[in-house]
């Protein structure tokens, strides 16, 4: 079974108006090579669901996000992404759904399990309820408790980046944290997974324990070999975050002169 797909073919699998989940966390193991393909294309009007980092910043700056579902957007070593804050302050993201991080996970779990909602305590009493007027609570059928009913997040496509995979789409992470990439894959109708390296199935468990096999092929439609595909975010242990590059990104994004950003964007893409 061969699910390999050339990086340049990725956008043939995507359409404007889709709901796209993006794996990773903040500025960690983001599928940046896949995101760059979207940035180079005409695809727009996206609903983006992510624990946001520069993926969200870049897509927001390019005006490709119609709706953003997020718990935070951060570059980790630099707390705020200026492209994201700028887009929000100028009304550049028409619709937002800001959730507590735990609610976000509950929504993904419900989506992955094909449930209409998952109950959670988080969100009660906070302005998350006011910022998401469609959110409803649910009364426990067993006692007097009342929980937030986080609606299931179903995704048309998920984009994730892992360390290794075989051609059949079994994905392996080798860093300290799996983040929620398996959940993103399960909550999506289709998943495109980029990896640092495609290896034989034998090789996957030859050098790492079987617990590192995070995403089973039944949830993966396409595998893209993209060495350095998470740059400038981290992809431990293959490489850490490129802090210098991230600083350059932030400086260009922050600049009042639009030419600074255009220059960066041209170089970056």
């Amino acid at each position, binding site marked *: 079974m061969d699910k390999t797909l050339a990086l340049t073919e990725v956008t043939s699998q995507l359409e404007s108006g889709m709901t796209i989940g993006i794996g990773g966390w903040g500025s960690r193991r983001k599928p940046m090579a896949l995101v760059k393909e979207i940035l180079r294309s005409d695809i727009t009007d996206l609903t983006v669901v992510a624990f946001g980092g520069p993926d969200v910043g870049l897509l927001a700056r390019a005006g490709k996000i119609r709706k953003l579902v997020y718990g935070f957007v951060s570059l980790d070593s630099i707390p705020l992404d200026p492209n994201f804050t700028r887009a*929000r302050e100028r009304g550049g993201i028409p619709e937002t759904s800001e959730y507590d991080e735990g609610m976000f996970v509950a929504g993904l779990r419900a989506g992955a399990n094909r449930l209409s909602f998952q109950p959670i305590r988080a969100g009660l009493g906070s302005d998350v309820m006011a910022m998401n007027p469609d959110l409803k609570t649910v009364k426990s059928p067993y006692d007097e408790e009342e929980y937030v009913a986080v609606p299931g997040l179903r995704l048309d496509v998920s984009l994730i980046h892992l360390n290794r995979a075989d051609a059949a789409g079994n994905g392996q992470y080798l860093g300290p944290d799996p983040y929620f990439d398996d959940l993103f894959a399960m909550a999506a109708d289709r998943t495109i997974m980029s990896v640092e390296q495609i290896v034989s199935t034998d090789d996957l468990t030859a050098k790492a324990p079987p617990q590192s096999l995070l995403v089973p092929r039944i949830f993966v439609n396409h595998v893209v070999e993209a060495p350095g595909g998470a740059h400038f975010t981290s992809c431990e242990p293959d490489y850490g975050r490129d802090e210098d590059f991230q600083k350059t990104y932030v400086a260009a994004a922050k600049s009042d002169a639009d030419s600074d950003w255009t220059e960066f964007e041209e170089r970056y893409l």
Partner: protein
Amino acid sequence: MTLQTISRADVCVAAVSDAFKGSGEVLAHAVGIVPAIGVRLAKATHTPELALSDGEAFMMAEAPPLLKTAAAGGVPEAWVPFRSIFDIVASGRRHSMMGASQIDRHGNQNISSIGDWRQPKRQLIGVRGAPGNTVNHRVDYWVAKHSARIFVDSVDVASGVGNDRAVGTAGRFHDLGVVVTNLAVFGYDENGLIKVNSIHPGVTPEELQEATGFPIDATDAPLTREPTEEELKIISAEDPKGLRHREVPES
């Protein structure tokens, strides 16, 4: 007047440590340099059972160098990637000290955005885990630069749930503790309103009132205690480069 040898930052670290006294065998979550040192001090002195995190995926029996992860040293004792963190939050076995961009007299905290959230004047990081933390386990706040822009009449986005909003299920495990700032330590009175627990040595009640956007009364407040010799040794061993003095400069 005696020679002032104890720095404001060290007073703050000791106050953070005191906030974790009696927390028991829970995961300490500390945002900021002073809180990160404070929980290490708490573990090294009165609460050895406290569990520290490396800010990434590990619980640490021995903490890594300050602001570094397990990759830089220390001894991991448990694997707690982000997916377990939300389960730990819901279990209640956690104690957070978070930052605050705004905080009101009921203890509502904002880290999301300033102004109308639909198109904010200033977008911040997002609510992150504040809504979930505050309805699940003890939460304290740390404010490194106490000002009337942070201590406000009402917050623009209630990210962390204050005492006035903690009703029904939201109130079941709600537990706001203290607010440690570079000027004072606050608690909450029987009505859930912020009150001054202690004022740091060298700060006047007038100065504190001026830096707070709602009325407070610090006239009878005791002084925040100074760290002991032993504590000072631990603090400087945990922070040999003195990063805490950058977060809390001498006024």
